[in-house]
């Protein structure tokens, strides 16, 4: 027999799972990019809350933080790169339907089969007292060398992608001899440059 608290917890956990899946479905059912964006955010928030219920506080809260911010920034990209604001007009949220359906169904079957068929091991040992600290140790302790290698590569990728995407370089801003002061910017900055 489960206690009352455990029973409530199970209901809440499954309820969050239903919210996550339903919001995920809503992403493709709605005809508005704004609603699709925030349906996806809701899906991730529900997953974040589930992770929180697994006592992985840091990962759960950071999931909520990152995903909500990501969706808000997506709204900025909508006007920056799409030439119009697609949120403003109804549009279908699906394309390449057959491929997408095939890939989605295949991924779901593979993951679900894995979850059901893998012989899950019994827990050995007990969870650490401070899970956030032990997560930090796990990521930054023995894996520090990997992190030190990966971060410059990631950073260089971001910088080169920006350099390739940027329509105006330093010669546009500072002239052929790079001596023009102040720089010629279409949008002046807040510190008077």
């Amino acid at each position, binding site marked *: 027999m489960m206690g009352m608290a455990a029973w409530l917890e199970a209901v809440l956990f499954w309820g969050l799972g239903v919210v996550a899946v339903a919001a995920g479905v809503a992403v493709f059912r709605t005809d508005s990019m704004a*609603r699709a964006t925030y349906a996806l955010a809701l899906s991730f928030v529900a997953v974040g809350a589930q992770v929180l219920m697994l006592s992985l*506080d840091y990962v759960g809260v950071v999931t909520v933080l990152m995903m909500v911010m990501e969706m*808000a920034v997506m709204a*900025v990209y909508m*006007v920056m790169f799409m030439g119009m604001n697609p949120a403003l007009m109804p549009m279908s949220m699906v394309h390449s339907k057959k491929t997408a359906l095939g890939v989605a169904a295949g991924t779901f079957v593979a993951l679900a089969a894995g979850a059901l068929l893998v012989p899950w091991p019994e827990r050995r040992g007990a969870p650490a007292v401070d899970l956030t600290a032990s997560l930090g140790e796990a990521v930054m302790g023995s894996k520090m060398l990997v992190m030190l290698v990966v971060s410059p590569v990631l950073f260089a990728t971001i910088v080169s992608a920006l350099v390739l995407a940027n329509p105006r370089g330093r010669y546009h801003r500072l002239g052929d001899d790079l001596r023009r002061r102040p720089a010629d910017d279409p949008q002046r900055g*807040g*510190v008077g440059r």
Partner: protein
Amino acid sequence: MPDVVEVSPLWAVPAALLVVLVAAWAACLDAGTGPGAVPGFTAPGREVARLLRQRRRTTLAADRLLWRLGGGGLLVAALLMVAVVPLGRWTLSDLGVGVVWFNAMDVLVWALVWMAGWGPNSAHALVGGYRFLAQALAYELPLMFALTAPAVAAGSLRVGDVVAAQQDLWFVVWMPVAFVVFCGCVVAFSVRGPFSSPTGADVAGGVLAEVSGVDRLLLLAGRYALLVAGSAFAVAAFLGGGAGPWLPGWLWSLLKTVALVSVLVAVRGRFPLLRPDRLVELGWVVVLPLTLLQLLVVSIVAVAG
């Protein structure tokens, strides 16, 4: 001072009432002292009565769902912030990652203000919503690093530990830059004063352009509540929480919060409006390096001390 203790979740109701009460104080002070002041402190009360009776204005093809979520959500975000802020030695939730929780809740404001701007299907409101996003990009990084400083000094993301670490010396004394930046960011995420261009008169009220009746009341109350929640967190993170002589801890927490809210309301009219399109450079070229330097000093002290 003893460590903070978690109280029954039922105390969330009085806590919410307390936030609304301090928010009402901020609104009264705002109406009575700011630019365009009305004599006496009754204007907000009359405005609440008016808005409660006002009919909702409807706009063509409005996205009601997102509009209502955005308008009502600000108050909810503020209350969720307060859930991890101790009042004296009582707290609703002494979450192990309380500082990150506060940060996540202030990121919710990004989505909510944009939704409130997008919902009515009105150009002015939409411009307001996008102005807020531009502003949020400028203030969020300084805010995150300002929040990191007390957490590094305390060696913990738990708000209770951050308060306990200030037993000898309040963090505001040796991390003044982080404190000032944090207070500025609180004003920014409550869309007030120099950061109020998303609701600016030049775009007919922006996010507030079309919203009326009880929705408008919730949106305006949410802004004040965010100011209160941010100030309450600043008290716990920088001003020693409930520490103080003679009076009980909870009263000190409350008094400090009311004082900080009053200061943040009073300085509103002393700064010019900041244009959101220029704010990013100011935020990232001036404020962010200052905050990082502050964090460096704090980290060195934390490691050496």
